[in-house]
């Protein structure tokens, strides 16, 4: 066991897979010499060589498209989109090809690649550096989409993603890259990509969240506890497929649900979770399944982020409202 933050845990997972599997390569903008703008790939080029860990030209569609080529040739590329907002130039390659090659060729070609995307707001960044595009990917058949919220999960889920025979969008909550430290096993282990996790048991309300929002919800739960409310917290982890079982068990018990995401509201991730709650636990519902999400606006530049990002206080207010409904 070793204490790691998310950056270190992800680096460790890459290091292990690079060492273990000659087919794994890691590339993208600045991931080589520089070790990534967040230092996630630091040291990997020196250790594994420039043909395995390298800088690519500045072209996201090219990065994604070439990775598909490598993957169908038997390699396992782990590519990086430097920031969430820069995954959009690669959208066509991801949606039209990466997600579909297996189906299109009836299983003859598979696309075992991983697209790492640091995502989300709250880091005082330029425009296009704070996006939460998970619904775009979650709505795209053929992809698996996951988001870890702890170093332990990050390592195990990234290893699973690299070993997965299908393309995985691996989104990293950059806001908590270094905020959370945890004991993490040094050896290889993997965590299933389709399971949510109950982080905290409770009786009166289920909160579903993931990524950096988990920490905010946890703070809100502390407030709620002081008010005497008992909240169950589910870390969704897998954006697609969704672990209906864990959600429905929880909501059937609590009868109330709040979904917290920083992505914009309309057609956003929270809507899907609320639909699933309707499908799985309608008769148990004692209050309207509720969402607390980003606004249907561009996420503001740093000085305006305080209004956009969801605070523990806002979550706590919703908890109270829902429990008292």
């Amino acid at each position, binding site marked *: 066991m070793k204490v790691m933050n998310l950056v270190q845990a992800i680096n460790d997972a890459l290091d292990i897979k690079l060492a273990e599997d000659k087919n794994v*390569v890691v590339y993208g903008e600045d991931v080589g010499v520089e070790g990534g703008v967040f230092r996630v790939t630091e040291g990997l080029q020196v250790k594994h060589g420039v*043909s395995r860990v390298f800088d*690519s*030209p500045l*072209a996201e*569609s*090219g990065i*994604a*498209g*070439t*990775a*598909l*080529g*490598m*993957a*169908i*040739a*038997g*390699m396992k*590329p782990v590519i990086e989109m430097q920031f969430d907002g820069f995954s959009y*130039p690669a959208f*066509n*390659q991801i949606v*039209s*090809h990466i997600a579909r*090659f*297996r*189906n*299109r*060729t*009836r*299983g*003859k*070609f*598979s696309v075992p690649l991983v697209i790492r995307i640091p995502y989300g707001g709250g880091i005082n960044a330029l425009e296009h550096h704070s996006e939460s595009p998970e619904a775009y990917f979650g709505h795209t*058949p*053929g992809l*698996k989409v996951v988001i870890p919220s702890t170093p332990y999960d990050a390592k195990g889920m990234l290893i699973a993603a690299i070993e*997965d*025979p*299908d393309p995985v969008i691996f989104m990293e909550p950059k806001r908590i890259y270094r905020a959370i430290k945890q004991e993490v096993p040094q050896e290889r282990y993997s965590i299933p990509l*389709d399971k949510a996790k109950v982080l905290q048991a409770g009786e009166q309300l289920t909160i579903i969240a993931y990524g950096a929002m988990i920490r905010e919800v946890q703070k809100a739960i502390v407030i709620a506890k002081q008010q005497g409310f008992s909240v169950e917290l589910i870390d969704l982890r897998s954006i*697609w*497929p*969704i672990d*209906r079982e864990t959600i429905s068990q929880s909501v059937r018990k609590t009868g109330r649900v709040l979904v917290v995401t920083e992505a914009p509201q309309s057609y956003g991730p929270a809507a899907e979770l609320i639909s699933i709650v309707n499908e799985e636990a309608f008769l148990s519902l004692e209050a309207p399944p509720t969402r607390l999400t980003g606004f249907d606006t561009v996420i503001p530049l740093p000085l305006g982020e305080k209004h956009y990002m969801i605070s523990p206080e806002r979550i706590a207010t919703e908890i109270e409202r829902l429990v008292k409904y």
Partner: protein
Amino acid sequence: MLTQKILDEYDPIKNKAYQLIDDEGKPLDKDWKPRLSNEEILKAYKDLLFERTADLMAVSYQRQGRMFTYPPNIGQEAIHIAAGIVTKEQDWLVTAFRELGAWLAKGVSLKELFLYFKGNEDGSRFEKANRVLPIAVPISSQLPHAAGLGYAINYNKEKDTAVFAYVGDGGTSEGDFHEALNFAAVWTAPVIFIIQNNQFAISVPLKMQTKSINLAIKGLAYNIPSLMVDGNDFFAMYEALSYAREQAVAGKGPFLIEAKTFRTGAHTTSDDPSKYRTQEEEEHWADKDPLKRLKGYILHKKIDDLKDEEELIKGFKKHIDSEFEAAENHPEYKVDDVFGYMYAELPDELRRQKNAYENFLRGVK
């Protein structure tokens, strides 16, 4: 044989297409001798003829409502057949959607192609074809795949292996064309990019597509050796492609060939070219028909009298019909075909959706 000297002579900046035989099939240079044997040349001619025959029949199947669409290859066969000869078993083939002869040469069956254009993904399995990517519909998006395959070849130190990647003239306007050529060059990837410049992108003529003096010149932007070739000249295409492949597998990186040709047919069976091109244009290009020119060469050189051509075509037609029948007799499209190939293992969510649909089919409520 192509040499650096010839390459210099045909530097794209000089805007001259490499050509070996004239419109009648006569060698431009009397001393020129093809590097292919007479048997090989005759075989190539028959392959062109086969492609043309299959193509014409495909169009007529479509007209009969037995396929939902079809993109004719007529006029572009020399490119495909020449590439087919140059391509080796271990080479990757990355196509758009108008490369019939190239697919056949790599072992794709007509049955599969017919099945695809009847509307079944089973036609993209390409069961007996080694290293052939499926038809790529989104223009140019296939080219980055080729660059990635090229990286994999280098990475795995595969000897004598190249990637053949096709795109149309219209496709050169897309960003992916640019990104793919750039990646391939930076990675010294063994990729032969072939632009089938058939003068049109659906209805849009080349001059509305780009102001560049030709398409081969675009290679300069990436420092990729490039050559404009008469794409209706089987021999020129063969020489250019052979040279390109040699260079690529020798570690010299990518090569770009602009094959100048003409889409004699419609864009697809739902298109009417008379709306956007003139009869003169069509006649001008009819003179340059690749089949006619290779036939001219064969007759001129007395390689064969081609008296059995009709017989040959009859045989072709029989075979083509039987392939089409095989496609028509292909098993029905099942619910499993919708869900079964999305992931290596069917995720619970898809199982749920599939069960719900099957319950509906069974009348279970």
